[in-house]
């Protein structure tokens, strides 16, 4: 019992510190003024990055032109959002059946420090095999995020760190143009029709 009390008190202290850090940190980019058009992800033809998938293949945005594409940002040390998103996507791909074979599906890690190609391969082996995991240098991942107008931030916590990141799933048409986003909290019933529209 005494141990448990200590743990609870510890949590309180840590939570207070985290709340303080969150309050101070805020989102540096939040107040940056952006016109409406700037908020949309660029077409793949205008993006520029070079990442590596879990099988060691180099992937560039232009490689995705010609097939509809689904991309999201995440990291494998996250216990809640990422397994949930990967389960959702695996479910959508199953529901799409053979149509899903025409899709490029990629998770771009926002945590290249821990998510090496090997770690991504191990993690993704538990989900639909059509999902590829991309990692690379922090600089290349930042270039990718800026093309998608996505954001991520490393947050120190409890001798460790966590990542805040854009949670939606991006859909692109086969011509490489941005189609739509499936929001994290969007009703899952709308996801598959949205993907079908992007597939065209």
């Amino acid at each position, binding site marked *: 019992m005494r141990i*448990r009390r200590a743990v*609870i008190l510890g*949590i309180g202290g840590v939570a207070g510190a985290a709340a303080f850090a969150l309050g101070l940190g805020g989102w540096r980019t939040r107040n940056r003024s952006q016109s409406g058009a700037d908020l949309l992800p660029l077409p793949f033809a205008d993006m520029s990055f070079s990442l590596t998938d879990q099988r060691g293949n180099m992937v560039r945005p232009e490689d995705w032109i010609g097939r509809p594409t689904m991309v999201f940002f995440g990291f494998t040390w996250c216990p*809640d959002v990422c397994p949930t998103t990967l389960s959702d996507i695996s479910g959508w791909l199953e529901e799409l059946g053979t149509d899903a074979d025409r899709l490029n599906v990629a998770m771009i890690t926002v945590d290249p420090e821990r998510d090496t190609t090997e770690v991504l391969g191990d993690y993704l082996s538990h989900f639909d095999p059509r999902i590829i995991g991309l990692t690379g240098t922090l600089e290349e991942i930042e270039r990718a995020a800026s093309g998608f107008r996505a954001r991520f931030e490393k947050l120190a916590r409890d001798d460790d760190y966590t990542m805040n*990141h*854009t949670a939606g799933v991006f859909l692109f048409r086969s011509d490489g143009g941005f189609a739509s*986003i499936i929001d994290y909290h969007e009703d899952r019933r709308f996801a598959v029709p949205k993907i079908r529209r992007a597939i065209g």
Partner: protein
Amino acid sequence: MKITVFTALILTLASPTLACETVTSGEMTIENAWSRATIGANRPAVFYVAITNAGSSGDALIGIATPAASMPMLHQTVVTEDIASMPHAMSIPIAAGQSVQLAPGGYHGMLMGLTEALKVGDNFPMTLTFQNAGDITINVEVLSIRAEGPDCESDGQ
């Protein structure tokens, strides 16, 4: 502690659908306790549960403890302007007559410092500490890393 683990093992043998067990203590009912299998012991695990307060006064979940992890914490996934973050939850209010779900995409327990990797079919005890109702312990079933919840007949979700 050894006795608790031993009891948990006995329960595993007796019931293949632990995630569907319901524990009631006073006005508080705890059910659908589950977790996802982890790859190794370095990544944090997750803890989900449904809590119902049938009483006439509010209560709050203020802490969790388990022999399965040295640093269990209450977190909440918050998506603001499409950015997912995972702030600590100091306490999770359980209003009178209300149910609260710790579920994917919202409140959850984050289990750091795992004693060992969680495998499908494992189970471990979790003690929930409430401000008023005190401690209540439930067995948590480890489901697949792809699971979105247990299949219970009287699913509260």
